[in-house]
């Protein structure tokens, strides 16, 4: 679990105490702190890669972190193509990873 949240008691900037938020990622529960992005909750849960690319099936996750690269797209509560770094996690969010395969072409 390389990415991690700084414990608020250790934080030199002295943030207000956190309130918990719980989501599920591909059916597995993940918890974070209210105000975090979905990407932050997923990263702190230990998953660096949570989307598979279309052409090569490679894992991708957060890259730019500011909504530019679209590598962190996830499905949220049934709606596809949400940038996980741009959406704040809401309690109960159901996150599903995306793998959009290329059309196989064998229909032709």
């Amino acid at each position, binding site marked *: 679990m390389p990415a991690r*949240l700084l414990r608020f008691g*250790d934080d030199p900037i002295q943030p207000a105490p956190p309130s918990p938020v719980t989501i599920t990622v591909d059916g597995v529960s993940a918890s974070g*702190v209210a*105000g975090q992005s979905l990407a932050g909750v997923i990263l*702190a849960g230990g998953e660096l*890669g949570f989307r598979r690319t279309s052409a090569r099936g490679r894992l*991708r996750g957060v890259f730019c972190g500011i909504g530019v*690269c679209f590598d962190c797209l996830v499905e949220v509560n049934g*709606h596809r193509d949400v940038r996980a770094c741009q959406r704040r996690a809401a309690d109960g969010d159901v996150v599903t990873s995306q793998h959009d395969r290329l059309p196989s072409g064998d229909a032709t």
Partner: protein
Amino acid sequence: MSGKLVNEVLVIGAGPAGLAAARAARERGTSVILLDSSDQLGGQFWRHLPETRPAGREEILHHGWSTFRDLSDALESDSGCRIIRSAQVWAIETSPEGPGTVHVVVGESDGVDRGRLAFSPDTIVLATGAHDRTLPFPGWDLPGVFTGGAAQALAKGERLAVGRRVVVAGAGPFLLPVAASLAATDARVLGVYEANRLPALLRGWLPKPWQLLGAAGKAAELAGYGAGHLKNRIPYRLGCAVVAAHGTDRVESVTIASVTADWMPIAGTERRITADAVCVSHGFTPRLELAIAAGCALTSERFVLVGDTQETSVPGVYAAGEITGIGGADLALAEGVIAGHLAAGGAVADVGLRSAVRRRRTFRGFAARIEAAHAIRLGWPEMLTPDTIVCRCEEVTYGDLCGTAASTRSKSLRALKLSTRAGLGICQGRICGRSVEELLAARVGDGGLSDAVTTDRRPIAAPIRLGELAVGHHNLPSDPDSMKGRK
């Protein structure tokens, strides 16, 4: 727009430049609408914990935090400034009568059924900022490779460190605050690797070395807050680059090599470092799509062309901050003040603008020295191997680009994009566009690419769902409070 009556200024972007512009326009008594795609003010530079979690000492993580608080407090308590958060501008339509019509969706990011608004203000201030430019290298598509901006956003906005053992690399003074933020979020920064060498840095910095000292002092002060690493100085190495990231499904190690003054890796200098994250940035790319949509001319260096008034080539459209040249927050603030004042009908010669004009001159000089010291050098493609991904979205490799350029003998960027698919994916070339242009220009030989096309033009500036497009827009919301977006 001097001499013309201005009733309403629309400011796009609430980072340093946009906030300063909004405030300056309000000081002239003009109504202001301030839009930002985020649900908080401050932009990337002043990214901070959400308002539901105020921090007692937020200023530790920021440069100029009191300036931010002053600007945001003044604007938030000002009924003449309408702040619309979570407002994504997705298109600007040009108009012969005015600066154009600005089309916006308001609601949570990438949501569904967001409200649509359209504004036709008297003047527009574009303050859309910049994002990291990261050059491709073998393994840069592995999870665990981040831009410096990602590390910053997660550290400052969530207090999350992207790794425990982190390498920071690339070029530019931005690497120092990235390392400092990571250290202040309890990550172990194994080293900061700046590709440029001492002679370049000295040439760039020597005229005003105290400014470098100022930046370094700030970084050291921040790094001091890394709990458990108080005594560990973070090594800062010049003339070194991360030339590869290794691992299956995630970064496990990186290869560092010495590079020449042109950034070509020097054989035999490679060494591996075990790391679980690597943050790489080689500078910044201005976010130009809205300026281009508004019809603004660009400079030869591909920034928005502005004069002393900060007005663009389109009457009534002003620009400030990183889209006019990468210069940092102090320059953005000065340009923002001037742009806002002029967009609200003022003149550059006005006495109240003297300080901003002076600061703009000072910090432009500073920006020129940063460029001289830290700019991307031409030898970077030597880091690439044929199977290095260049376009992350469409997974186009360097070998694909070279092969297509050779076999088609095309000199047209448009044709080469279509035949390779580089830059045509969901990020619309934001990440790879300029690298693809440079690689192809080098491959096609004499004269470079022939068509006057760039990868910066994106008529749809942000994704919008078809259902939202079908619904149509309101010219003005009937209930402004309903349009503020979810907090």
